[in-house]
């Protein structure tokens, strides 16, 4: 606001003296209107920002992390000076450490899954921005119990580069580091693109199953193998009814017409495959499940795990309505649903919408999926 007013002053100063006198009334009126417009614009901008329950856009990650630690001290502790939360008893000696993370704004991912049977550490980047290498490196150091550390990365260029740089730093320290890249989103896939697909809610299954494997005392290579197996068998796709507002940007990341939805958008508000007029829950769900099953063909008798994931702005009521349709569609194919997860697992701030994830199980994945987990966001006996 200050900058804009300064600019207006500069304009006045550059007018030569006689002109200023002659047209003082007109110029004054013009300037006045301009100032009023600028003021109104700024007010509107602030009004949008105020629609978030935050204190300061620059402090959202810091204050959130403080809140998480206060809520779950039995599960997590903060690595002093870093945006890293690790298990309260880290490092767990003799166990492979699991580190995941990414931009903030996907809560309960990723810190919500730190605990027994899942992750050892979670790194929180700025909102929707991958964490920097020094942060990931600190997480690796904090969770290494002598058996090495597995990095679970979602397939975004920034995440991969920052986690790779962290791995290089940890390697130099003599810590064994392996990594897997989750790429479950079938929406904007095209295997000929070298960068591949985005990683979204299917990542939670990787946390769960690789975490259970690590808990058995398996070595780094074994844990990595199981994580890769999940990635090979998990597919997701989502849709959005409304955009989200990144606090630092203060305005919606995209706009949709009143009756429009975005099909296949990313969890950072990246555009999807197309926009269309809103359809019923059943029609939309069928569209997404069809796309998933085209990529992950299932036969009668196959066992799967299902996740109906809310993006932050959709009520459980709607998620359950969607789940009803997913179960019906899979039932028609005589696919057996071994376990269903319905809720907010990988969100996009307040975006309204959902994603469906299907994980094809074999005996090993099934056993690890059903193994106990005790974390802030996922508890299972």
């Amino acid at each position: 606001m200050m900058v804009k007013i300064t600019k207006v002053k500069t304009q006045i100063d550059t007018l030569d003296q006689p002109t200023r006198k002659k047209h003082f009334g007109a110029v004054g009126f013009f300037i006045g209107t301009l100032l009023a417009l600028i003021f109104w614009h700024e007010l509107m901008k602030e009004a949008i920002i105020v629609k978030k329950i935050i204190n300061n856009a620059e402090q959202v990650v810091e204050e959130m992390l403080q809140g998480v630690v206060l809520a779950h001290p039995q599960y997590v502790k903060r690595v002093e000076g870093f945006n890293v939360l690790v298990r309260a008893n880290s490092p767990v000696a003799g166990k492979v450490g699991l580190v995941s993370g990414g931009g903030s704004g996907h809560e309960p991912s990723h810190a919500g899954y730190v605990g027994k049977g899942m992750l050892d550490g979670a790194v929180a980047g700025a909102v929707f921005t991958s964490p920097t290498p020094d942060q990931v490196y600190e997480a690796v150091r904090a969770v290494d119990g002598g058996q090495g550390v597995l990095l679970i990365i979602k397939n975004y260029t920034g995440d991969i580069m920052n986690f790779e740089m962290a791995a290089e730093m940890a390697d130099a320290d003599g810590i064994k580091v392996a990594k897997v890249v989750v790429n479950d989103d079938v929406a904007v896939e095209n295997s000929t693109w070298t960068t591949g697909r985005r990683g979204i809610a299917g990542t939670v299954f990787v946390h769960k199953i690789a975490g259970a494997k690590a808990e058995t005392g398996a070595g780094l290579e074994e844990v990595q193998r199981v994580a890769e197996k999940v990635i090979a068998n998990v597919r997701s796709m989502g849709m959005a009814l409304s955009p989200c507002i990144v606090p630092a940007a203060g305005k919606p990341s995209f706009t949709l017409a009143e009756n429009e939805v975005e099909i296949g958008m990313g969890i950072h508000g990246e555009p999807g495959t197309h926009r269309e007029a809103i359809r019923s829950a059943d029609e939309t769900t069928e569209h997404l499940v069809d796309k998933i099953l085209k990529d992950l063909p299932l036969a009668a008798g196959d066992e799967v795990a299902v996740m109906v994931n809310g993006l932050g702005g959709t009520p459980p009521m709607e998620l359950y309505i969607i789940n009803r349709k997913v179960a019906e569609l899979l039932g028609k194919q005589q696919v057996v649903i071994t376990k269903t997860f319905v809720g907010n697992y990988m969100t996009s701030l307040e975006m309204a919408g959902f994603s469906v994830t299907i994980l094809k199980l074999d005996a090993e994945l099934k056993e690890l999926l059903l193994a106990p987990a005790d974390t802030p966001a996922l508890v299972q006996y």
Partner: protein
Amino acid sequence: MANVILAIEVLADIIIANKEKLTEIDAAIGDADHGINMARGFEAVRTKLATAKPDDIGAVLKMVGMTLISTVGGASGPLYGTAFMRAAGVVQGQQVLNSDKAGQMLAAAIGGIKERGKAVKGEKTMLDALEPAYEAFQGGLAAGKSLAECMELATAAAQAGLEYTKTIIATKGRASYLGERSLGHQDAGATSSYLMLAALTELAKGQEQEG
């Protein structure tokens, strides 16, 4: 040395001034954070510059690179950070910058970006602005032009490269997930690269006129 610190300040100014514009461009085909992230990085660079007392040009650039890597995040942090670190390597221990060195720095920076991002020209990234810029800069040097003139050629080539990114489909970065939907939009990274070159060119022209 003082010129290099001034140049870094100019870069910080141009990025911070264009924070919203860069974020808007990124929103069209990416995830709407390029301006925010780059501005956060260069705010940190400004703060460091105000207190740090680097001994030589290499040390200044190394500090900029490290600061960007540890504050920007996303893809731009490692890419620009690596670029500055590599440029620093060329002028380690030196107090004065000449045209030849500037060309070598640009080459080293581009090499770093290619390695870190595993990218080449034509994939709708910052390389589409930077590689033509480097070629134009070297062309200017070979023709015996001044630093400011070489920079002007480089900036014009970067601008053409930026226009070119509107005409191609992204195959790297988040925009690549969109395939054809990325057509018609310019790349955010190429935009910030162009802006930085343009700002440095203005600086070089101003200094040359001062004599």
